[in-house]
Each structure stands twice: as structure tokens, then as C-alpha cells.
């Protein structure tokens, strides 16, 4: 398959996802899973196709950049399924951040590996897009926790307030869960990147141990905050869980930057 055909087909998936997401935001909620699935196929399908050599960075930078940034954004858009203002604003902000991260990923991927290794640079771009999606989804979870707490404080006597607050709490957990799942996706992507650059799935470097540790800590934080009981400790943990997940992901990427290497990868910059 040519580069053009590959990016056109995958771009088509992303296009379906974008249209469905817009309809979703404006009220047609049932399309949200379609939007998310289409974006997901674009993100992972792009990684697999690019790994298999069906496309490389140089000939098609613009559609590739669009593909990655949009796929990262679509991974979190279902959180905007309802008309709650806080969640909608959070989702829009997250989309912009994901788009920015996706674009930065392309720039980073194009400049960091020395030629002639530029082909595999796109895999790194997809890896960054997955991390960007994980970070923005986890941030959406933090916003939802904030919305939940505000809901409890602001209107504790209103009719239906308790139910609404509970929904926010459950949605915060969902966003954190999705963030953790995207973070786990970065792990097999990292193995494929190592296979492409180093001929081995991994070398067991400090960077890889750090990446594994952050992912395990995020998973643990999510599970500790999983319970949606009404007991005091369960509510505290429900609030702390998504915040801890977001902190772990963002701290992980930040620290990896400080050491001069992409998150969980044993490649120099």
C-alpha cells in the first residue's frame, strides 16, 4: 500500500471520528462510542501500519500530524457526552492540549533520531500521541473530580443533586481508567519502537524501569480509588485516585524529559 493510500484510509477513520464527535457534543450521544472507536483505530492502526513500513514521515507530514493529533483527542472526547458545562469545557481544553501534544510529537520525532532512522520516528510520534491522550484523559478526570466536589459543596439540598454528584464521581473514575489504559498502550508501542531501532524489544534500562514504575503506580492509584461506596474513606480515595493518576502520568513525562529521553524508551534524543 502506498503512503498516500495509507494516510487516506486512516485519515478517513479519523474524519468519521471527528464528525461523530461533533455530533456527539451537540447532542447525538449514541455516536460517541463510534467516535472513540474510529479515533482509536486511527491511532493504533496508524502505529501498526507505520511499523510495518506502510508509510513514513517525510512524504506526508501534514496528514500524519493530523492523524496523530486527532486520534489522541478522540480518545477522550466521550467524556463530553452530556451537557454539563464543566465537562464540556474540560473536554475542549483537553482536545486542544492533545492536538498540541500530537503536533509537538511530530516535531520531536522528526528532529530527534538521526537520519537515516527517520522512518521509525513516526512510531515515536504515535507513542507520544498515546501519552498525550493518556495525560489529557487523566486531566479530564481531575476536572471531573473538581466538578464532583463543587457539586457536593454547592448544592447539597437540591433535588437530584446527589445523583448528579454520583454521576460525576463515576465519570471521573472512567476518565482515569481510560487514561491508565492509554498509558498501558504506550508499553507495547515502546516495545515495537525498540524493536525497530535496536533490534530488541527492550534493554532493561533505567528509563524502561521508570516507565513501568509510573504505569504500575497509576494503575494502583486507579484501583485503590475504584470503590464508589458512600463511606468517607471510599469518597476520599475516589477523589485522590484520578488526581494521583494524572500526577503520575504528567510527572512521568516531565521527569523523562529531564533525563533527555522519551518516556519509557531507551533512545537518546
Amino acid at each position, binding site marked *: 500500500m502506498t503512503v498516500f493510500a495509507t494516510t487516506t484510509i486512516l485519515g478517513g477513520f479519523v474524519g468519521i471520528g471527528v464528525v461523530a464527535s461533533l455530533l456527539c457534543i451537540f447532542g447525538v450521544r*449514541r455516536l*460517541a*462510542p463510534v467516535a*472513540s*472507536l474510529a479515533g*482509536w483505530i486511527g491511532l*493504533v492502526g496508524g502505529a501498526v501500519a507505520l511499523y510495518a513500513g506502510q508509510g513514513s514521515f517525510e512524504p506526508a507530514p501534514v496528514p500524519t500530524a493530523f492523524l496523530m493529533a486527532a486520534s489522541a483527542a478522540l480518545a477522550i472526547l*466521550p*467524556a463530553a*457526552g452530556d451537557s454539563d458545562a464543566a465537562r464540556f469545557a474540560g473536554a475542549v481544553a483537553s482536545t486542544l492540549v492533545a492536538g498540541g501534544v500530537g503536533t509537538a510529537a511530530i516535531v520531536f520525532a522528526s528532529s530527534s533520531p*538521526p537520519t*537515516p*532512522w527517520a522512518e*521509525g520516528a513516526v512510531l515515536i510520534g504515535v507513542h507520544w500521541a498515546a501519552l498525550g491522550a493518556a495525560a489529557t484523559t487523566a486531566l479530564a478526570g481531575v476536572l471531573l473530580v473538581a466538578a464532583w466536589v463543587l457539586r457536593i459543596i454547592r448544592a447539597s439540598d437540591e433535588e437530584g443533586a446527589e445523583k448528579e454528584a*454520583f*454521576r460525576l464521581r*463515576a*465519570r471521573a*473514575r*472512567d476518565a482515569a481508567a*481510560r487514561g491508565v*489504559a492509554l498509558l*498501558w*498502550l504506550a*508499553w*507495547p508501542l515502546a*516495545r*515495537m519502537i525498540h*524493536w*525497530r*531501532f*535496536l*533490534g*530488541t*524489544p*527492550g*534493554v*532493561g*534500562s*533505567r*528509563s524502561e*524501569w*521508570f516507565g*513501568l*514504575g*509510573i504505569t*504500575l*503506580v497509576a*494503575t*494502583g492509584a486507579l*484501583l*485503590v480509588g*475504584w470503590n*464508589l*461506596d458512600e463511606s468517607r474513606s471510599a469518597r476520599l*480515595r475516589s477523589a485522590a485516585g484520578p488526581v494521583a493518576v494524572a500526577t503520575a502520568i504528567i510527572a512521568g513525562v516531565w521527569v523523562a524529559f529531564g533525563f*533527555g529521553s522519551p518516556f519509557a*524508551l*531507551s*533512545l537518546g534524543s
Partner: protein
Amino acid sequence: MPTHLQPGRDSLVERTWQTAVRPEFVGLLFLVAGAVSLVVAFTTGGTAADPVGWIDAVRIDFAIPTTAGLLGGAVILLVGAAWDRWRRSEVDSESGASEWRNRRLPLAGGLIGGLGVVFVLVGWFALLSAGPGGELTLTTGETAESFQGRVAGENVAIMLPYRFQLEGAELEEGASFDVGLAKPGNDPFRRATLGPGRSIAVGEYRVAPVGLSTESGQLQAVFTKSEGEGTAVATLGESFRLGPDGPEFKVDAIEENYLDTMGPAARLSSGEMSGVWAFQRTPKPEHLPEGRPDVQLERIEKAPAVVFRVSPAVPMWPVFVGGGLLVVGFAISLIAPERVRLLEHGEYRVDSFNEAGRFAVDDAENGRET
């Protein structure tokens, strides 16, 4: 088998199990395993004389079984928790038609995704347990019998099962490297042309070119003719021709500063002649002796050495299978929406991974969904 367990009435095993499969306990196992991994990442600094960088391979003999054991335990408990839910969903759901879509399919999605993660993790731990890897730096024409690895904090030379030879390197139009495997004393029995990152199996190792180094490596000399076209590059021991019809020269020696005064020089032999010196500071052609072949030394430079990564050969299919399962599981979880249900004993049960589907809360008083 009782569906709603009452502490105090059940056996110790049952109560221990019920505590262990709570998400908080499994989460704690994950947190501890994560903490162990982070400790490894931050405390392995090597020594001042030989620091271990962020992307260098490290072997931590306590961390691999500890982390693997904790994760194995956590995975078993997670599977147990999922199995409990699967069993209970059979009893708690209202009708058979919606049971799969509302409860079991998202659970299946999570399980499949989790299985994918397990595959990838198992592959990674197997790689770590498989023996040390290392690096190998070769210039064109060089042969290696061993590579540099680290065992128990020391740099050691680890033998390769065959001799590994870099026969040629093409760096102009996309990099490619011609390598050969040979038994001692014989010609290479296996040859391959590798691109960057592509590997070849050498016994139980995989060797892949990963970079270029100009620090190690031999000197190479660039030769030209005084008249006409023709340039050749050769390292010690190599032969070259200047132009298609010219005589073949062999490089016997390369000196950066001949006799400490005369500058860069190379000694060549050609046919019957030997001991012909070519200098960078060349006298004019008319000052050269009769019969001397027309070859000049333009410059001497460091030959770029190719850096190879040597790693124990482990199969790659767990990564692909695991990644695929992860994606499939995530997709299933997205497609199948879930519900919040208020059960009879007052407990809320939410099993949603994607709440953008129908997010419904049972209105327990009215007995209908909102």
C-alpha cells in the same frame, strides 16, 4: 455457593479471598510493584568512574522476580475479582437478553485488554531474565568474536557463537550494512544486508546496527590521482583502485605523522612494487621518481565505526499479540455501555468503562431507569 457473603459466617479462606480481591488490595500490590520499579530506576547509578546512564541497560537481580511476583499475584487476584463478578452477574441481572451487553461484554473487554498487558509484560520479563546484552563496535572489514556487556557491574567480553564480520557499510543513500557470520578460519557461511535497527540472529543473540561512532575505529585514507578523476577510500589492509583501469593498491600502513615530521602518509603495495609511500604533503609530480604510480594521499580521517546492539534473542510475538489484545479489549469496552445499578441491599454497582453510552441510574424508588 452463596451469592452474598456474610463475614463471620464464612471460612477464613473465603474471607481472606474476599479481602484480597477487593480492588484496593490489588491496587496496593500494583503500587508496591511500581515503587520497586521506581526505586530501581533512581538508585542504579553505577560508580563515579563508570556511571550508568538513563538509557543504559541495567541488570537488577532482586527487582525482576520481585516485580514479576507482585504483578503475577495482582493479575491472579484481578482475574479472581473478575470471575466473582461474572458469577454474580448471572444472578443479579434482570433479563438474559441484556445481561451480556450490559455487564459481561464490558467485563470481557477489560479481561481481554488485561490479558494483552500480561502478554507484553511476560515478554519483557523474559527478555530481562535471558542474559546480558551489550554493544559491539566494528569498522568496515573488521571481525569480532565477542561483544562488550555488563555482568554484575563489571564490563566483560562475552563470546559470540560465530565470528561476526562487517563486510561493508553504505551510508550515502540510506544506510545499509553488509555483515557476515563465519566459523573460525572459514569464509562467511551466512551473509545479510541490514538496515538500521534490523537484526540478524547470531546463535542465541540478535545483532542489529544502531548507530555510528567516530570516536573508536581505525584511520582511513582518501586517495586521489594527481591528474584525472579517481578517488578511493581505504583502511588498513584494504585494496583499492583509482578509476576502473588503474592498478590495484593495497594499504600496508597508515601513519598520522610519518617520522613525526612528514605529516600524514600511507604505505602502499601494488603488483610487484611494495613500499610506495603516498604523502599528504606531496611534492610536485615532476619531482617524483620515474615509474612511481600516480597515487596521492588526500587526507586521513577516522573511519566511522558501526555500533551494533547485541541482545538475547527473545520472540517478538508476545508484543504483537499483547498489543492486539489490548486494543481489542479497549474497543469492546468502548462499544458496550454499562449501567449504574442500585442493588437490593443498598449497594451501588457501577461497571462502566465508557460512560458515553447510555449512562443510566436505576431509580430504585420508581423502579425505572432515568
